[in-house]
């Protein structure tokens, strides 16, 4: 990589000096080998070493002053709470919605917490569809309800339905005797605003962390496609598949990268869809209210509620959120966990590293060695996790490998360790034990480790 920017040059020199200092300062800690030094920098040059509650919300450290300002504008937009009062700023909420701002679900730019039995959905939402596909091969909307259930509404409108959550719990034991429990969520819909559809498929989706997404978007499509093995020709039991989804801006099918089933091709579309579906905010990409086709639809006065500049600023904000660096990566327990992570085959899908594509227009994202621990492909995860609701090429048992970077900071940023698409797992151990399908082998690999080894593997994940 040619380093044009003097700031980068200084930085790299500083890093080299620091590395030398590190290696020679003393030999107490086990240092990572030279090539492994990069692993401290999960987000390449866009890594921040901050481990408090703000860990997910830091801008790229190399942004210019002008770009920082754009990032901050986006930050304001991300936090802006929408309302239904036409006389105020941030007007346009609803008429039906899931929540009132981006940050209401992506708290601290992080992960939503699963609602406990009887609690409101909070950061969770329900995608819905009926069998069949839309004109682009995507989920077929439910007549009079659309593709997402909005369980809240502004005054004068009716929420689509009430949703209550409960869990059934089962206890299990590891072969070495340690016990654990898994809970399965049950969503009960009632009080439909109009006749409830009979054949509705429901998929619960938890708000996911939003940092590092610009770097994932910057991975060369060819590098992702190269990992596909749709018919499992190498016979390892893993058959990753790229999702192909409708790209509204480009008016064509493209690689899906974002969302729990990789149903969105770009951050701009992901953001615009969230504005529209989660908050009821019309925008350039989604000009119609989510209540379109309902008696309460705001059709006659359909105005674009979100300015293009806010949409772009928010997408830019998300794109330029840095990745927290590794912590304690050179401790022996964590080193052991890393070896076990690879030995059990977790790394087959949670692919440790990529180098982002060269990008002259956005040098911050260009040619970065990153450690996201995902392949961005969808995999069969077994019946236990299946939502049985297809989304483009991802079928009812397939989910996109979520990135693992920063996962160890969930507790400090979000105050919980709820994982998976609906937040059902209450710890990393539970999340692993939910794996099935293509991940069955890796799961049983973990299951059959002894207590100390499982602890090491979890410690490795927590250091990410």
């Amino acid at each position, binding site marked *: 990589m040619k380093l044009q920017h003097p700031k980068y040059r200084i930085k790299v020199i*500083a*890093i080299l*000096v*620091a*590395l030398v*200092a*590190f*290696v*020679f*300062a003393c030999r*107490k*800690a086990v240092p990572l080998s030279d090539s492994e*030094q990069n692993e*401290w*920098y999960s987000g390449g040059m866009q*890594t*921040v*070493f*901050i*481990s*408090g*509650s*703000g860990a997910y919300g*830091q*801008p790229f*450290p*190399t*942004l210019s002053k002008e770009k*920082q300002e754009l990032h*901050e504008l986006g*930050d304001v937009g*991300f*936090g802006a*709470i929408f*309302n*239904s*009062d036409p*006389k*105020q*700023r941030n007007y346009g909420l609803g008429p039906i919605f899931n929540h*009132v*701002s981006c*940050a*209401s679900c992506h*708290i*601290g*730019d992080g992960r939503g917490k699963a609602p406990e039995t009887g609690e*409101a959905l*909070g950061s969770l939402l329900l995608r819905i569809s009926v069998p069949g596909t839309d004109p682009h091969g995507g989920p077929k909307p439910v007549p009079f309800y659309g593709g997402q259930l909005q369980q*809240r509404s*502004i*005054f004068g409108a009716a929420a689509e339905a009430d949703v209550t959550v409960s869990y059934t719990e089962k206890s299990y034991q590891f072969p070495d005797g340690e016990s654990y429990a898994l809970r399965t969520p049950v969503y009960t819909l009632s009080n439909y605003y109009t006749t409830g559809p009979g054949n509705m498929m429901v998929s619960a989706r938890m708000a996911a962390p939003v940092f590092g997404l610009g770097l994932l978007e910057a991975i060369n499509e060819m590098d992702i496609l190269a990992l596909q093995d749709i018919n499992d020709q190498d016979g390892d039991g893993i058959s990753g598949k790229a999702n192909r989804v409708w790209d509204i801006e480009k008016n064509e099918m493209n690689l899906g990268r974002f969302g729990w089933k990789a149903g969105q091709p770009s951050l701009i579309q992901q953001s615009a869809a969230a504005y529209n579906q989660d908050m009821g905010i019309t925008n350039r990409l989604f000009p119609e209210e989510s209540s379109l086709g309902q008696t309460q639809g705001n059709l006659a006065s359909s105005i674009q509620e979100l300015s293009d500049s806010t949409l772009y600023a928010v997408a830019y904000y998300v794109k330029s959120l840095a990745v927290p*660096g590794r912590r*304690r990566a*050179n401790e022996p327990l964590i080193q052991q966990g890393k070896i076990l992570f690879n030995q059990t085959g977790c790394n087959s899908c949670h692919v440790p590293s990529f180098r982002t594509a060269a990008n002259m227009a956005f040098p911050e994202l260009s040619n970065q060695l990153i450690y996201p621990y995902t392949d961005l492909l969808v995999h069969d995860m077994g019946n236990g996790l299946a939502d049985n609701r297809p989304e483009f090429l991802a079928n009812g048992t397939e989910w996109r490998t979520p990135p693992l970077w920063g996962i160890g900071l969930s*507790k400090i*940023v*979000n*105050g*919980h360790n709820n994982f998976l698409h609906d937040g059902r797992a209450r710890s990393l151990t539970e999340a692993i034990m939910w794996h099935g399908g293509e991940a069955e082998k890796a799961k049983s690999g973990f299951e059959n480790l002894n207590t100390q080894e499982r602890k090491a593997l979890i410690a490795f994940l927590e250091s990410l």
Partner: protein
Amino acid sequence: MNTKNISSAALIISLIGIHSCRKAENPSGSSGTPEEVQKAIIYQLADNVIFATYQDMDSGAVALETHVNAFIQNGGEEELKACRESWLAIRGAWEKSEGFLFGPVATQNVDPRIDTWPVNFQSLDSVLTHNSTFDNAYIESLEDALRGFHPIEYLIFGQNGEKKAADFTQRQKDYLLALSHNLRGLCDLVVNEWHGGYYKEFTQPGSGSVYANQREVYEEIVQAIIGICDEVANGKILEPFSANDPSLEESPFSQNSMTDFTNNIRSVANIYYGAYSKNGKGLEDFVRLYNLSLHGKISMEIEAAIKSLENISLPFGQAITAEATKLQSAMDAINALKETLENELLPLVQLHSAE
């Protein structure tokens, strides 16, 4: 979210190298090793400042609910005045807690549930004309802008702060009571969560805590005071100021915004000096160990920031146009403090706090 670049990966790596073989030393000569002093600071900040502030907030919420109840029983000006005073009191405690927006208040998403503005008048009117029962489940189902401090403020002060006891409808009283009750519940939640485990995680970093070591606790504390400086200067003041729009003001009905801002910066002072319920150890004692001139600089800048805010005589909504220069100076002073905390204090605590 709001804070800025804290990268310096290089620094961190060299720290790991240097620190792993570093022997504790005590450059100040005061009692206790630096590690002991650092530990004591965290305990005392937790007890004397953070938890004490939350307790004031919680007892303030109890008082507010009591006064609202009394007002609803008797309905007089006297009782209404007591409601307003107790609102201002609890508001003060809350704003003085915004210098440490981490832990339960952040992870339980308490902030948006009690402190969202501007108030959504249209929906608020709808809530008042609707016939739902004002129970806590109903309040919880409302949009964030329809509960917490600011709808309460609107109800008890009125649009221009001139509301009379006789102006209240029964429905407004019911709503007010339910809102006060909800606010109290959320204040209870914060106190209970601190009691119920977070206190231990905060004061005893290491295994069993979300903080791996004291350095991470210090980073959390310093990040939070940087965050509130940024929020006050570049959000709360700058947004209404640059939009020249008083309707974006935070506490317009009580005309309390300037006090809010000042209390925010006071919370920075409280954390820095370790003084609130009583005068104990604070970040000051950390800085003094290593860099006396930085201590001098931070003290002066905290004082300048508070003075520059106190300098503004008009309510914020009017100051936006009538005292623009003074507001600009206040933003500059707060930003200067923020820069120092970010560029000098944060690296200092990262360098010297125990791994």
